[in-house]
């Protein structure tokens, strides 16, 4: 990016909303993803749709790449800059524009944090269920772009189940409006759902319309301790077979339990091989009945202890502790590579076994936790990026895990997105025709490939760091 381009950008957003200082470039070179980073050329904080539109048009002419960014908590590198890029930060777009209590919808700007949105709609007795682990920090815009999940996915689904419409600026500068407040709407292709999970490669989202549901009135949260990992996995299967749908069913292995306990000091059992955090919610006596059934299933599967949260605040403490799991694992080693291989839930016990096997086979340490109820595991490799040999073994272990997940009918990512970190595995899941279709759509919308290029599938421009790497580099690679 040359000075002339920078001057033009400044003219669009104003000097105060532009920076290319070395300090700011460093501070926008990363997100929540391990190992990957790249310096952008400049950063802008646009204030209006028009400014974003003009930036897009300029990017096609200049040219330079445009990388949208929310709070930067992503775990697949979706908001990490690429070569010659301008980072567009949306965190100041943090207004809730309308809470419509007649249609049960909320209209927000993309920079509103998920937790803030939830607490505002709860004041009206309404509920926005998706709750990614970083909900106090991450933005709705990022959630929509990555189709984020969370702890409550099992019963309430993920972000895509709540998006009714979006407004976004396309790479050619046009404003696209998708969806609306209609419960039913089949006019043309379903563009609104296509935008969800497009990882900032199709447009920069400037407005979001979300569906809300009535806030459940009762909930019971309990924690079951297991001496054996396999017992906990069986308990999960039994609950699903008993036709109970808890709103949350979270699994933590021994390594994770220890790290979380060291951070929270809430009395988690450091000797247990696994714990399950389960919440049932709803209305009236059914909640209590479900909780009893859950308890019985836990006991039948040799749970050594069942702790029932005595109050909402205790339940919140337990859930907050679970949300800290990924970062707490960094207590053991400085680099934590978190993946989210996901399998059909009946295959969860097999997948947990495969993670253990990967750790043994490649001599690396894993902390394993995740959303047991929906088969979305978060095997996290505890390593140190300064040890290149170990990092290489970690990559091989992940390759093994991804392969095994796919053999079990699973996928490479349940809720974090493909981004930079997993794009080399995409063909394994989507197949060649799938990836080809994605590329065609992208090039039809973004002719000059200026918007978040190199993410999901394109190969160039390349990003710094040792991830992602080519499959051919791995010995004994097999599908």
């Amino acid at each position: 990016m040359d000075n002339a381009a920078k001057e033009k950008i400044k003219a669009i957003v104003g000097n105060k909303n532009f920076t290319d200082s070395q300090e700011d470039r460093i501070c926008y070179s990363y997100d929540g993803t391990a190992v990957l980073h790249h310096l952008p050329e400049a950063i802008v904080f646009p204030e209006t749709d028009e400014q974003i539109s003009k930036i897009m048009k300029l990017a096609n002419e200049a040219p330079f790449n445009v990388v949208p960014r929310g709070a930067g908590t992503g775990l697949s590198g979706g908001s990490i800059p690429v070569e010659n890029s301008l980072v567009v930060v949306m965190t100041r777009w943090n207004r809730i524009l309308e809470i419509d209590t007649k249609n049960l919808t909320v209209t927000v700007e993309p920079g509103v944090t998920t937790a803030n949105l939830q607490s505002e709609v709860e004041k009206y007795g309404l509920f926005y269920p998706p709750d990614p682990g970083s909900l106090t920090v991450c933005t709705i815009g990022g959630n929509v772009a990555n189709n984020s999940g969370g702890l409550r996915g099992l019963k309430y689904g993920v972000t895509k189940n709540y998006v009714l419409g979006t407004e976004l600026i396309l790479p050619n500068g046009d404003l696209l409006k998708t969806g609306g407040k209609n419960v039913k709407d089949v006019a043309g292709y379903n563009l609104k759902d296509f935008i969800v999970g497009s990882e900032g490669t199709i447009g920069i989202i400037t407005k979001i319309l979300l569906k809300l549901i009535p806030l459940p009135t009762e909930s019971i949260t309990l924690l079951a301790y297991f001496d054996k990992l396999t017992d906990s996995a069986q308990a999960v299967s039994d609950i699903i077979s008993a036709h109970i749908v808890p709103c949350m069913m979270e699994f933590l292995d021994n390594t994770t339990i220890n790290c979380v306990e060291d951070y929270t000091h809430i009395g988690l059992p450091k000797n247990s091989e696994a714990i399950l955090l389960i919440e049932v919610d709803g209305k009236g006596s059914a909640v209590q009945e479900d909780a009893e059934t859950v308890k019985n299933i836990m006991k039948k599967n040799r749970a050594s202890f069942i702790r029932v949260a005595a109050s909402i605040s205790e339940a919140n403490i337990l859930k907050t502790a679970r949300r800290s799991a990924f970062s707490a694992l960094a207590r053991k080693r400085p680099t934590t590579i978190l993946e989210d291989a996901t399998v059909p839930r009946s295959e969860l016990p097999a997948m947990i076994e495969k993670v253990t096997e990967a750790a043994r086979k490649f001599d690396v340490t894993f902390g394993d936790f995740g959303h047991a109820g929906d088969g979305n595991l978060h095997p996290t490799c505890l390593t140190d990026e300064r040890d290149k040999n170990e990092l290489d073994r970690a990559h091989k272990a992940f390759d093994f895990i991804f392969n095994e997940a796919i053999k079990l009918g699973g996928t490479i990512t349940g809720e974090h997105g493909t981004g930079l970190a997993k794009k080399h595995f995409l063909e394994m899941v989507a197949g060649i025709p799938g990836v080809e279709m994605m590329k065609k759509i992208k090039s039809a919308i973004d002719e000059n490939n200026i918007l978040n290029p190199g993410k999901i599938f394109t190969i160039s421009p390349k990003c710094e760091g040792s991830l992602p790497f080519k499959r051919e580099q791995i010995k004994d690679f097999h599908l």
Partner: protein
Amino acid sequence: MSEKINLLVLQKILPNDDILSQCIHCGMCLATCPTYELTKLERSSPRGRIRLINALAKSEIELTDTFVYEMNFCLDCQACETACPAGVKYGSMVEAAREVISESEYGASFSNKFKKFLLRNILASQPKLKFVSKLLFIYQSFGIKKFLHSIGFFKLLSPKLGEVDKLSPEVSKTFSSNIFQERIKPKGEIKYKIAFLTGCLMDVMFAEINKDTVDVLTLCNCEVINPKNQVCCGSLHAHNGDIETAIKLAKKNVDEFGKFDYDFLVSNSAGCGAFMKEYGHVLQNDFNYSEKAKLFSEKVKDITEFLSDILPEITFHNVEGSFTYHDACHLAHTQKVTNQPRKVLNSIPGIELNNLEESTWCCGSAGIYNIVHYDDSMKMLERKMENIRKTNSSTVLTGNPGCISQIKYGAKKFNVNVEVFHPVTIIKRALLNSNKK
């Protein structure tokens, strides 16, 4: 320049890059950072600052105006440490960066030199502090302050100076260290021997709170030991990048308190307690002091922490009123003391303790932050005062002198009708069965 910084200063404090690598930049700290909340800029966040310190240590950047600004813009409230599941020691990194700044040409500016002079020569010396405080007392009490404000003297110099002058706490008539005997015995049998840090500013500006603390302790059957040669704890020095003086003061206190046999060392100031708990860490590589300092730190307790431990032995009388409690940063985030003060206060009959939203969010006092970053500090104070207003309480309690002054100032500035006290003042009332103010 940066090469020199890297080798000489930063590495001295951050012995290897483990401490810098520990941050996995997950961003969980962002939501708790008052400065990030103000600017929404990554460099004003703990994650961004760590990345910048890392870049400086690796000579990727020079020491620049922006770097210096961001390190000083940080309140050092350490809310991010509470929020960090990975256990990153952010506070010590920022303090190290501040030392780098203070050693560099940036430290040579007039205001920095003046700050250093105050810290090294006034706060660190009890007689000099008392002398300056006497002058301040004369200024505050004989109409000079009122007169200068009435003729608009400060506005002539700088519009903010007048506000800053109002922010500074009133000097106490009598300094607490002038009243206290070295050993103060309770009326009855001695159950605990408690060493007490009179502190520097606590002694001259908040003598009443010190008196209340000693009274509470003796009413709870404690002998209070008050070593007459004790010095300032050094926390303000450490937070402002003068670790050398902080270490000198720490050693002196380890020696002076070491002359007495006591069960616990009690502090009524969150900042002092927090730093004395760190002595063991600060002096860990000092051959002569490491063991002694470790033992010293293990005995340090905040007054509410101590009272909470001996709660079954205390009988409280009725105290009517609606109260709320603000968590001082260095109590909540550095010492992780949040439940104990609430537990003690809730066990006083008659007290209605209202929940304060965002009670652990910094009030903006932060040492001398409210003076050097007046505008930013006021934005944080306004947020705090609005939360206090919502509780409909008549009294705010908080365990740190800086917070007390700040919230008192905020009550006037933002027109919130509350009184502000240290919890010990109310605890003393409850012990004496007197609801008189």
